[in-house]
């Protein structure tokens, strides 16, 4: 209702603390949902009823910027968002995780987000948001690959291709430097756009584009495993709400977050395999490519972006973990 949402500590002991957990995916099999349900399960069972978690799968908003707004206003307590949408809150440093070819593989990614860099980023987010956002875990939405009307054998093949990807920022710059034309198409319209030559290709992770049948279109059936983005997603909590909890509750809350992280990643990794196989079974062609020239092209862009937002030290740390 009206007014303040802070839960007084004394009150918390008697009445369960309600946690509104929300993400933007509506499918019940989505890894986000699996992760959130794990969070609910652990938080409720380990807290002796101190927590009551309700999970909203897309019903509190399907846009990420809306989820961030909700978290800030206290209309949601735990949300998942991507770096792009976080940086609009004014915390530019988050863009680090969106740089192309920042990570070599999931192992490298895991070392970064679960290690020192992840801790620093979490601290930065909490400070720069005036103690409003607390990172309680790093999730992933998979590794993104190219898919289009022809298999890539070298970077040259991208020349003049209209690719559906971000049309601003470092990512757009990267695709432009490779010779392609970044084009903006709404996700729900992408199937049509691929089918009708509005774009010649796109890039995403297997579970996402295979579920949308993009691999069944002529402009989407050649998949080249470019692996240009091992995506990071932030599992964020309302920091004020967290601070109001008893130390014991905080411990349980974080335990639940850890369990959720594991569940989400496991589900995603499994689905990535599953959907890759579905794509192949449906007749899509998958090929691999030497990533070295792609990585080489990305390096100066990474340097430039890191310098611009003043996170050269973080970038170095990420690279050192390779």
């Amino acid at each position: 209702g009206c007014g303040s949402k802070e839960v007084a500590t004394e009150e918390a002991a008697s009445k369960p603390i309600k946690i509104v957990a929300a993400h933007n995916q509506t499918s019940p099999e989505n890894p986000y949902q699996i992760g959130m349900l794990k969070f609910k399960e652990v938080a409720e069972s380990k807290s002796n009823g101190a927590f009551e978690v309700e999970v909203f799968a897309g019903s509190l908003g399907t846009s990420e910027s809306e989820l961030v707004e909700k978290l800030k206003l206290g209309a949601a307590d735990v949300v998942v968002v991507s770096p792009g949408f976080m940086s609009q809150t004014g915390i530019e440093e988050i863009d680090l995780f969106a740089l192309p070819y920042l990570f070599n593989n999931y192992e490298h990614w895991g070392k970064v987000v679960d290690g020192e860099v992840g801790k620093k980023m979490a601290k930065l987010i909490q400070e720069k948001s005036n103690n409003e956002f607390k990172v309680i875990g790093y999730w992933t939405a998979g590794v993104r690959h190219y898919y289009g009307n022809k298999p890539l054998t070298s970077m040259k093949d991208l020349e003049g291709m209209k690719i559906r990807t971000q049309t601003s920022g470092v990512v757009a710059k990267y695709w432009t430097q490779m010779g392609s034309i970044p084009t903006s198409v709404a996700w729900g319209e992408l199937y049509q756009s691929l089918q009708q030559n509005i774009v010649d290709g796109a890039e995403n992770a297997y579970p996402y584009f295979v579920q949308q049948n993009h691999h069944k279109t002529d402009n989407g059936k050649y998949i080249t495993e470019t692996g240009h983005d091992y995506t990071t997603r932030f599992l964020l909590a309302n920091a004020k709400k967290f601070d109001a909890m008893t130390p014991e509750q905080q411990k349980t809350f974080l335990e639940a977050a850890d369990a959720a992280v594991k569940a989400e990643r496991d589900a995603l990794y499994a689905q990535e395999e599953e959907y890759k196989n579905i794509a192949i079974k449906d007749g899509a062609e998958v090929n691999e490519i030497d990533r070295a020239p792609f990585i080489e092209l990305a390096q100066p862009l990474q340097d430039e972006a890191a310098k611009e937002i003043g996170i050269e030290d973080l970038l170095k740390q990420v690279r050192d973990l390779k």
Partner: protein
Amino acid sequence: MLGFILIGIFILFMSIGVPIAFVIAIIALLGISAAPYIPTVTVVTKMFNGLNSFVLLAVPLFILAANLMNRGQISQKLINFSIAIVGHVRGGLAHANILVSMIFAGVSGASQADTAGVGKVLIPNMIESGYDKETAVGVTAASSTIGVIIPPSIPMIIYAGLTNASISSLFIAGIVPGVLIGLGMMLVVYILAIKKGYPKYERASLKKLFKLFCESFPALLTPIIIIGGIITGFYTATEAAAFASLYTFLISMFFYKTLKLKDIPDILVETLTLSCLSLFALAAASALGELLGYYQIATIAEQFFTTYITQKWLFMSIVIVFFLLIGTFMDAIPAMILFIPVILPTALKLGISPILLGIVTIITLAIGLVTPPYGLCLLIAAQIGELSIEKSFKTTALFILVILVVLIFVAFFPNIAFFIPQKMQPNLF
């Protein structure tokens, strides 16, 4: 308990004449401030976010296109041409009225602009030629509903935004039912014309027909360019809307020379005032949708339906009856914002494609445009014809039967109704 209080306030405020959009927003405000764990400020942020969507941008663009058609007298050219084609049949003007609405529908995404633009010319013309007022008003109102069924269509764009269904698939799927409704209405006119002895025009000479055809050719081209462009994927819906406006602007400015630069400010004001009404209602409905989302109404509905209703046809019938009722007092756009998210999960569970659900919903809500108490097209036509709502509705009802027949055909025999689009895009149906 809270639910009952809110419904009570809803009915009370509606009946004393609080604007509908505001009633919706007030219910959202009350509900959200009473609900635990949602800060009340969410009401305004949700109104903002409800409008912050790329698909909605097509709405004012299509309204602009329709305004330009009316202002630039393109509607008049289309009317002249339609009369030349079907004027010689008994009840020719009524047939022309329907035909022009079908062509107009191919450019405009809304129905009201058609009622107003075509009605202003044809209602007086029909009455003068010896038609009774009821028929003049009824045909005009009923045929303008085709505007949202034949693409482009604003409700389809909104629906696509709500469900992530493809706009162009919806557009393609709307063509056959839209044309069928038009032809069905012509059949009704034909029967009425014989019974009541409506007048007919002399058949236009081939020479005159050709002259009129040439004159209206650029205008006739508009729907072909727009629908063709969307189907072949040459442009997206928003782009099509932009293009429609630009094209109508250019031909009425430079080809017909019926539009002057000094008309532009007026057209802009008209476009703004017309667009903002339904879009503000949409913003308000988004806020109320947040409340429904918070109580997970969609999940409850899904559980309810999947327990008690397992047949597709039964679910479809419920959807149709429900939207028929809602449509009598609410605009199509807020109605969809509030209820599509609630029924969509159930439809998917039952194996009903989002495209089918969309077309059925949109045709059903189009009927709401001509049913009292709140049927915008009926109100506009009645006002032009200076006829009471009750009398206007009497002839309109006959044509509503046509829409219902087509609706039932689409809802229960989708394989026949969507035969062509299914062939074009097999995995979307």
